[in-house]
């Protein structure tokens, strides 16, 4: 019976324990936290299996000891003392019951704690009457995460069965813990995700495949406004103010990145301009989208991430704006337009900002309006023309002091005392002005920022000012330089036009050319005719065209400059004389880029020159004719001599024949002489004719001594008839000269006849002329004609060369003028001086020709 009872008892016990296990498993599984599960375990084990205290131990943070866990169970009254004692205890590895279990990772059973040597809490246990104890590890893997212990008042031997049940329960606890920890982990991950979504700088929007917005993080709300739950994808663009980059066209809803990602597309870097209805400024977002797919690849929806690139875009726009302004400067846009664009660009960079640019006049004392598109007109007008100075508002002071001037409140700042009322009317409160300086440090103007609130510039505004003054400086300086250039060009052009100068540029590579209006007039081109190099060349007279072209090519290649005097043949046969001068511009490799130059119309001058030459020749001719008159005696004598001989010889021959005693040899002689004298007479006639003929100069190498001898002989009869003597003193070593014979004879005749005239009042014995030659230096041949007459005007001997100067009653006063022009045309000089004793000496110096021995005899 007892056995039966024991067996039955055992069976009942087991059954009870099994039901306990079942209950606890269900309860533990239902517990939503490890601590509540632990509490269930401790309580149920005590209630169902006869323990009075159950508590847990957990390793402390650094893992050196076990501390008493917060969850425990105990029965009534004094048992709490044990709990107090436990809470005060800490067990190292192997110490006490918890320490032993911790170390062995195995359950431990103590029949009576009073007998156990390794039980530090034994005193308290004895006082309360605790005897049996059991400890079990709770393992996660092979790590002890907690130790639970139970106590009872009875002393009981170890029940393997009970230990197994409790161990099984503990294992349940471990499972629960694992599960709970996983759940906690998951929830923590969710929290992190949520946190990321809430705190990240990018907007994240997730939609399901129907376009229902599942995720719309706070940044998305900031970008796009509150999540609209009732709108469909086709309304998103309008709902959220989504535009294409042109900022005005609504983004096509079916092309929105989220729509596309829901459709299954990957979307990369799409830029959207967002401007919500009530927002003052729009913003720019760059969007990336990805489709969301289920495990089997089915489409679940889409996700987009939007990044705010407004600042980047604005900087990009700002940079592009700066480039535009710089391009305007480079394209020589009007300064007012450039500065206005610059001001507008700056104003666009900050809310409520108004800017202006003032220019400093060339007088350096007054300002003039530059650009202020958004300042009141009254203000702009009032400032225009104002003087600069140490207390002249922000700009006037900035230009005067060459330093930035920051006025945070124009209503109180002393600099603004003169402009306060104006500023008030115009609603301006703060004005910060910075001088615009050229690279050389000259003040060109000022750039000012105005605000309606009282404050100083923000760092961003200071940066804008720096950029604005820099660009404005470039623009103004360039404009000034171009103005100076234009003025200079205008002056040059004016001077050129009045000087009959034509400007031209040739571009030989392109066969293109440019020519000023005056040039077109000279060359006979219409104003609007497109010019080429060939066209210009075609105007050159055909006789000279090839030579001009060749000279141009050669000069440009060799010297880089070109000069030519030639004729132009214009349509309708008009001829012009021009001088062309050019300079070649070459690149670094020496290729000819262009030739710039001028053409001077010298037709009038040329005409005058030709006229003058004709006149000079006419005068010279008249002079020679008049010389003939002076030399009639000589010519008559010269001619009558051979004629006399001929007549005599003919007469003699006739007489010999009449007398019939003619010797044939004598007759031969007479005839021969007649022929010779005829020729001589012919020579005389030719000589006279050559002197009288209007011949142009033909230079020849001549022996001047021979020319003098012949000329003196020619004039000898007249010299004799005037009871004068001409003697010659000729240097036998005289080099040759290259002269026109007739002209040199003319010079000599003029000088000799002048000398004769000068001595008319002298007794015949004193009437002497000395013609001498010499060549001291060898490169100059000197001829002097000296008389012993009345001499030259004492004060100015060279007066004799003046036109119409004459001491003679019958003289024209042209002789010596002509003599000088002839001598100078031969590259020589003539000097008139008074000779040492008395009389005059005319000295002609002509360039000698060395190394020539051949002499061409005077005719």
């Amino acid at each position: 019976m007892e056995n039966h009872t024991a067996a039955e008892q055992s069976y009942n016990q087991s059954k009870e324990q099994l039901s306990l296990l079942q209950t606890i498993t269900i309860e533990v599984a239902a517990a939503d936290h490890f601590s509540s599960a632990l509490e269930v375990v401790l309580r149920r084990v005590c209630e169902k299996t006869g323990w009075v205290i159950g508590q847990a131990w957990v390793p402390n943070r650094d893992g050196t000891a076990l501390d008493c866990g917060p969850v425990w169970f105990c029965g009534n009254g004094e048992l709490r003392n044990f709990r107090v004692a436990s809470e005060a205890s800490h067990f190292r590895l192997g110490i006490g019951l918890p320490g032993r279990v911790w170390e062995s990772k195995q359950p431990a059973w103590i029949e009576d704690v009073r007998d156990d040597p390794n039980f530090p809490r034994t005193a308290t246990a004895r006082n309360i009457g605790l005897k049996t104890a059991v400890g079990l590890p709770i393992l996660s893997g092979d790590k002890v995460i907690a130790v639970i212990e139970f106590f009872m008042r009875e002393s009981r031997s170890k029940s393997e069965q009970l230990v197994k049940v409790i161990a099984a329960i503990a294992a349940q606890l471990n499972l629960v813990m694992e599960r709970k920890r996983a759940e906690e982990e998951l929830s923590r991950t969710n929290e992190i995700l949520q946190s990321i979504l809430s705190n990240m700088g990018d907007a994240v929007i997730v939609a399901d495949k129907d376009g229902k917005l599942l995720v719309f993080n706070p940044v998305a709300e900031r970008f796009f406004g509150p999540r609209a739950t009732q709108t469909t994808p086709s309304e998103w663009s309008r709902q959220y103010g989504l535009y294409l980059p042109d900022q005005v066209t609504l983004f096509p809803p079916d092309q929105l990145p989220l729509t596309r990602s829901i459709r299954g597309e990957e979307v990369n870097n799409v830029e959207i301009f967002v401007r919500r209805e009530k927002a003052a400024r729009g913003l720019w977002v760059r969007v990336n989208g990805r489709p969301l797919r289920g495990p089997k690849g089915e489409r679940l929806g889409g996700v987009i991430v939007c990044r705010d690139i407004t600042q980047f875009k604005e900087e990009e726009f700002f940079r592009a704006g700066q480039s535009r302004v710089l391009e305007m400067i480079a394209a020589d846009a009007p300064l007012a337009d450039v500065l206005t664009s610059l001001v507008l660009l700056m104003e666009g960079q900050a809310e409520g900002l108004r800017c202006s640019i003032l220019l400093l006049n060339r007088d350096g004392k007054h300002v003039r309006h530059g650009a202020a598109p958004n300042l009141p007109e009254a203000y702009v007008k009032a400032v225009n023309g104002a003087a600069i100075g140490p207390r002249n508002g922000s700009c006037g002071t900035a230009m005067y002091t060459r330093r930035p001037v920051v006025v945070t409140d124009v209503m109180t700042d002393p600099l603004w005392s003169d402009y306060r009322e104006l500023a008030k009317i115009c609603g301006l409160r703060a004005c910060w002005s910075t001088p615009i300086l050229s690279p050389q440090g000259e003040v060109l103007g000022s750039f000012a920022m105005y605000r309606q609130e009282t404050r100083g510039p923000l760092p961003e505004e200071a940066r804008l000012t720096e950029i604005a003054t820099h660009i404005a400086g470039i623009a103004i300086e360039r404009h000034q330089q171009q103005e100076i250039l234009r003025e200079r060009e205008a002056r040059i052009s004016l001077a050129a036009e009045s000087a009959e100068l034509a400007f031209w540029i040739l571009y030989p590579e392109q066969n293109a050319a440019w020519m000023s209006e005056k040039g077109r007039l000279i060359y006979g081109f219409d104003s609007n005719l497109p010019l080429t190099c060939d066209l210009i060349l075609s105007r050159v007279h055909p006789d000279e065209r090839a030579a001009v072209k060749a000279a141009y090519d050669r000069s440009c290649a060799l010297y880089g400059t070109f000069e030519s005097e030639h004729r132009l043949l214009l349509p309708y046969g008009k001829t012009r004389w021009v001088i062309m001068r050019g300079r070649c511009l070459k690149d670094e490799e020496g290729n000819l880029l262009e030739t710039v130059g001028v053409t001077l119309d010298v037709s009038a001058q040329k005409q005058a020159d030709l006229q003058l030459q004709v006149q000079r020749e006419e005068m010279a001719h008249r002079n020679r004719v008049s010389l003939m008159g002076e030399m009639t005696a000589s010519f008559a004598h010269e001619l009558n001599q051979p004629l006399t001989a001929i007549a005599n010889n003919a007469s003699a021959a006739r007489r010999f024949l009449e007398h019939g005693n003619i010797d044939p040899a004598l007759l031969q002689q007479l005839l021969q002489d007649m022929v010779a004298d005829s020729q001589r007479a012919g020579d005389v006639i030719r000589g006279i004719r050559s002197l009288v003929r209007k011949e142009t100069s033909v230079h020849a190498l001549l022996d001047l001594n021979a020319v003098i001898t012949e000329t003196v002989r020619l004039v000898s009869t007249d010299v004799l008839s005037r009871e004068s003597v001409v003697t010659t003193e000729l240097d036998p070593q005289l080099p040759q000269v290259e002269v026109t014979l007739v002209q040199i004879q003319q010079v000599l005749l003029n000088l000799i006849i002048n000398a004769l005239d000068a001595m008319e009042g002298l007794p015949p014995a004193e009437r002497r002329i000395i013609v001498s030659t010499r060549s001291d230096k060898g490169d100059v041949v000197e001829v002097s004609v000296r008389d012993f007459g009345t001499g030259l005007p004492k004060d100015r001997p060279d007066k004799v060369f003046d036109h119409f100067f004459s001491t003679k009653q019958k003289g024209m006063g042209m002789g010596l003028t002509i003599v000088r022009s002839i001598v100078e045309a031969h590259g020589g000089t003539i000097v008139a001086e008074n000779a040492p004793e008395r009389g005059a000496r005319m000295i002609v110096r002509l360039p000698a020709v060395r190394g020539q021995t051949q002499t061409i005899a005077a005719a």
Partner: protein
Amino acid sequence: MSNPIEAEKEVCLLDDDLSVLKSMHYLLASEGFKVRAFSKAADFLVHASTHDVPVVVTDIWMDQVTGLEVLARLCAISPKTRVIVITAREDLAARATAMAIGPVAFFMKPFDDEKFIAAVRDALNQSAK
């Protein structure tokens, strides 16, 4: 040479122009005159000082000296010499001067040969008287 006077007496010629001198020589020779020609005045004056010169035909315009000077000298050396002046240039002053000294004839070159020869002949005959 019908006239013995003409054959005996020399006619002197003075002209610095050789071809003229030579042609006059031929012209007078063709009429049988005995002729002595001089191209230099000095040579003639020497001759006139040492010889009887009944007639001289002289040029006025010569290189070194004028015929007028020769005439003046001749007047002193041989006052009886008849002088015939020939000149290539019309010059009234020279003519007047010459006539004052006393030539018997004055001819402009070129001259009429008949009149010239007649003049020479007359001069010779007169000198013979």
